[in-house]
């Protein structure tokens, strides 16, 4: 919530005393200058550079140099070549989001409303996975889902999995990894919203003969909307751009768009293609985010 609401707490600071206004008028700009310059030069300018690179002549190469030929044809080319990976990225991220909501909502609700004095401890447990390295944690799933592991053995024994069935190197493993890695980003804003929920409203709903399901749908859910919207965005944006899970837990059949972009820039050294894919990814995510915000009707979150 706080992450997505930089303007939220913008109550106007009191006007500076008139006597020193000359100095004070410059001061905020001096304070902002180094940080803003850093962000402009190393965040803003590169985006322009990326856009330019996506329009480079696809015939060039890193050694002979690229010419900016406004080759808009790069975009249809990459869509044609890599639309399955694009669809897969959003499909896996969407599936992981649904799973994360099913797991994360009860967790956030329990911590906010039921945990009492254990609240802080449980919150630490939610953030605890982030205390250790992302890659090392993801590799741990390789051990958990391993063909010789206890989990696969159990599932084979109860015939949920064929005798030669496996979990690792399947879409399931990738979605599970995505869900796991980004779940805290969903739970924390959701918790912040649910924590402010007044329990008496639920009691009032029950007094007025609402069933638990009705009370949830008409009271809890609408009141947790800001946290829900912020949480789903904080989950979905990194999940759809992730390629670590697909690489470590999947096979090339599970590759997402990130894997393609990584290899375009670092292996095949095809900059125009990589840049066009990156730009498309950003456009697609922005489209999803704004479409979703409009539907959710909480535009003030931004």
């Amino acid at each position, binding site marked *: 919530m706080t992450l997505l609401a930089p303007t939220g707490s913008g109550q106007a600071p009191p006007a500076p005393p008139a006597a020193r206004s000359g100095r004070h008028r410059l001061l905020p700009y001096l304070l902002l200058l180094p940080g803003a310059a*850093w962000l402009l030069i190393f*965040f803003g300018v590169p985006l322009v550079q990326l856009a330019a690179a996506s329009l480079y002549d696809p015939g060039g190469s890193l050694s002979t140099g690229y010419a900016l030929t406004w080759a808009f044809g790069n975009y249809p080319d990459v869509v044609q070549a890599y639309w399955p990976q694009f669809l897969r990225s959003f499909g896996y991220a969407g599936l992981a989001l649904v799973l994360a909501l099913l797991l994360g909502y009860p967790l956030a609700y329990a911590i906010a409303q039921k945990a009492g004095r254990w609240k802080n401890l449980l919150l630490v447990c939610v953030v605890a996975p982030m205390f250790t390295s992302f890659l090392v944690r993801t590799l741990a799933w390789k051990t958990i889902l391993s063909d010789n592991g206890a989990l696969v053995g159990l599932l084979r024994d109860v015939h949920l999995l064929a005798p030669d069935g496996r979990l690792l190197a399947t879409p399931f493993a990738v979605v599970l990894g995505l869900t796991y890695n980004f779940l805290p980003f969903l739970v924390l804003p959701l918790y912040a919203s649910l924590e402010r929920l007044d329990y008496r409203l639920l009691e009032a709903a029950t007094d007025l003969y609402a069933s638990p399901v009705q009370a949830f749908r008409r009271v809890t859910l609408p009141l947790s909307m800001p946290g829900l919207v912020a949480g789903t965005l904080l989950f979905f944006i990194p999940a759809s751009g992730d390629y670590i899970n697909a690489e470590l837990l999947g096979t090339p059949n599970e590759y997402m768009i990130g894997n393609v972009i*990584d290899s375009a820039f670092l292996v095949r050294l095809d900059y125009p293609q990589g840049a066009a894919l990156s730009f498309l990814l*950003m456009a697609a995510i922005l489209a999803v985010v704004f479409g979703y915000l409009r539907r959710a009707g909480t535009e003030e979150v931004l």
Partner: protein
Amino acid sequence: MRVSRWLADRWVMIVALLVLGYLALPILVVAGLSFNRPSSRLSYDFNEFTLDNWRQPCATSDMCDAVVRSVQIGFIATVVATVLGTLMAFALVRHRFRGRAGINVLIFLPMATPELVMGTSLLALFVSAGVPQGFWTIVIAHVMFCVSFVVVTVKARLAGMDRRLEEAAMDLYASEWQTFRRITLPLVLPGIVAAALLAFSLSFDDFIITNFNAGTTVTFPMYVWGAAQRGIPPQVNVIGTAMFAIALLLVGLSSLRGRRARRANLLAAAPAARPARRPS
């Protein structure tokens, strides 16, 4: 009947604990694997208990070099990002100026942009400007994505601060600098420390942006990525476990200090309250 009633009352908590178990499982596995002697370089299964990995964490020296490099980069990036971000937070909370909306967007956008896009766009910039990639391009990239998180964290602390304390200091003839040094800074410091810790952990753990801007420099996450193809030395899990333990220790210490401070406040308030409670 009674069992189903009990379940109906507590199912949310039960689900929550199961989910926490799902979140904790990989950490337990990492800790367990740090005591493992793997049967082969490419095996991820638990084979045999050993203390060797903890006794010789630097048996593969590349890995320890990478850890040291990550700490160096994290340290420099944290210092720079914390200074830049704190200045920006002060400007945003304490001053009224033209262009506030634009600055807010500039701070917000890096947090909403996929890392992949930030990494590739910086790469495009460095390549077209002919900047050789390595240690310093990683630092630049890390400062860039940490600044926004510092601003948000420090801003939250500043916005919740009681300005009357500063006004009181000024009324008592403290100069502007004295007020800042003796009142403002100590009150904002917890926010700045929290922001710095956040920045360090973001920097230390970053893979995607680093991967595009590292050249041949190897940080710890990049070492793990490369090793995943060649075979992971079990010492990687030692580092993972140690990181976790240190972070947990920091959280524990800070919550202990917070509790002690609260208790001290209560004790300090008690003598003043006592006469009022005992009218004789």
